[in-house]
């Protein structure tokens, strides 16, 4: 079963003294298996929307339904549990743990999923192989190229077989060719997952089925991708 996330009149305001509105009464529903791009100018609220979809942020107003459950009623522990088992993240800056090898970075994602220590590496190795880094498992992040590091990050997000994969500008630090390869890899590897990608790149948006456009925190367009 894949996930659905529904936002109902969700708003997010930054705390005082700024009080800036990051999202303004956004309503949308993410259906299971969808491939969605979120686009918009810098500061339009894309990353905030992604954080709310991934249960990293609670809204200031409105409600979130995750698999039909109202998130507001869930404790932080419950939200953490959902992220551990059902949600994978990929970030623009990769955010690998520098003191761990590629294999251990991927295995680290299974710590909070309750997988035993001796099983984590066994589960991580094939995922790294699948993203083409079978020969890099013992390399540290500083020994990998940008594209390789992003592939480790993708492997880390996918190792727990998430139902929802969220990527925030995953190709932002990569050249266009590498970035395109990374997107294809991500979409190919996450076949059963719902994928939401925040991007500035039209070429990335074209690869996805649905494009949500934000402007100053307001959802201004939500439609099928023109590809």
């Amino acid at each position, binding site marked *: 079963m894949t996930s659905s996330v529904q936002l109902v009149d969700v708003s997010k305001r930054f705390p005082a003294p700024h009080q800036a509105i990051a999202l303004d009464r956004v309503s949308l529903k993410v259906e299971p298996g969808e491939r969605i791009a979120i686009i918009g100018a810098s500061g339009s609220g894309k990353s905030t929307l992604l*954080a709310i979809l991934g249960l*990293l942020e609670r809204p200031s107003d409105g409600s979130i339904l995750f698999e039909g459950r109202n998130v507001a009623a869930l404790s*932080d*522990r419950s939200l*953490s549990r959902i992220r*551990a088992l059902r949600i994978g993240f990929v970030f623009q*800056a990769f*955010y690998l743990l520098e003191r761990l090898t590629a294999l251990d970075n991927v295995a680290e994602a299974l710590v909070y999923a309750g997988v035993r220590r001796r099983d984590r590496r066994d589960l991580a190795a094939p995922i790294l192989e699948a993203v083409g880094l079978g020969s890099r498992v013992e390399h540290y992040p500083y020994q990998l190229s940008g594209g390789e590091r992003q592939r480790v990050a993708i492997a880390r997000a996918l190792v727990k077989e998430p139902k929802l994969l969220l990527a925030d500008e995953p190709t932002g630090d990569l050249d266009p060719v590498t970035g395109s390869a990374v997107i294809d890899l991500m979409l190919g590897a996450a076949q059963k997952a719902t994928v939401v990608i925040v991007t500035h790149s039209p070429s990335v948006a074209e690869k996805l089925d649905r494009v949500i456009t934000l402007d100053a925190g307001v959802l201004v367009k939500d439609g099928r991708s023109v590809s």
Partner: protein
Amino acid sequence: MLSALGVAVGVGALVGVLGLASTVQAGLLAQLTALGDVLTVVSTGSGSGGSMLMPGSVLESVGRIPTVQAVAATMTLDLSARRTELIPSDQTGGISVDVFTGSIAAANDAHMIAQVRPLPGSSQLPEAIVGWDAAQTLGVTAGLLPVPISIGGDSILVVGILGPTPTESNVESSVLIPAGFASVALGFAGSYDTIYVRAPLDVSDTVASLLLPTVDPSGSPGLEVTRDSSVLAAEADTATAFEGLTVALAGVGLLVAGLGVANILTISVIERRVEIGVRRALGATRASVAILFVTEGALIACIGGAAGVLLGGWATLIGAWREGFPPSISPGVIAGGFGVALIVSLLASLYPALRAAMLAPSDALRTMA
């Protein structure tokens, strides 16, 4: 590691202070039980008609008190002792000239560390033995014996050196002339101002209660009994008297070390914002993030505590060697050192751990965007 060093110094001071205090106390108490007790009957000079002197004949009576092991007596003369007559007579060097009789060494729990020949109190030869401090002041060493010194203008041959006493008795700074010679050559009348009695520690109370009635059945004022055991017990108490103060100082040191640990861990939280955010995104709960930093605090505690116990142990060993006692550190002090390190470090890690746990994951990740 530097924060662990701070904890180590604090714990080391604590363990060292407690270890040294217990070492000195144990050593002094061991002396008490091993060497017996020396009781001193002293003329206080408060009797009617001036000082109350004790006739030599009472020594036999004192010696008959059950369990008494040795008896001796001294009388201080108004004479000065000098290495040679070239030294002005008013430069006494703190040395007294005393007439002695009886077993002067045994009665003071001391030993003759050097002697050409035994010198009994009955000897009428112009010879003397010197106490430990007096020997050093006069420049008399074992290798020089027998060596002449000047007493009241007369030449006296030093034939022995009396070793140190457990409580630095007056005999240590005395030149001791046998009563036999003193009575023949110096007009000594045969009365003494101090009697030394050695008895086992466990019966010294009884002996003390019998001494004055034996020495002076009339019960006149002017005589006082003191005991080495009281002095040593007081010294043992003194060894621990400042324990509280130094423990308090060590506690201040540990507080400073704890603040250092808290500071380092707080900086670590700030520097690891991304890691915290990533872990939260991976599904870490607030509690597991907090445990991460508390664990680091515990690691600092283990390293600092172990190093501190070693430091304190070394300090105790060095102090024990200097004092001449066997080292004594109780397992409780070692466990306490570890315990204090753990408590300090865990308390210090609470604020940073809480701060890390309350960090919003999106804020942490947004920082790096």
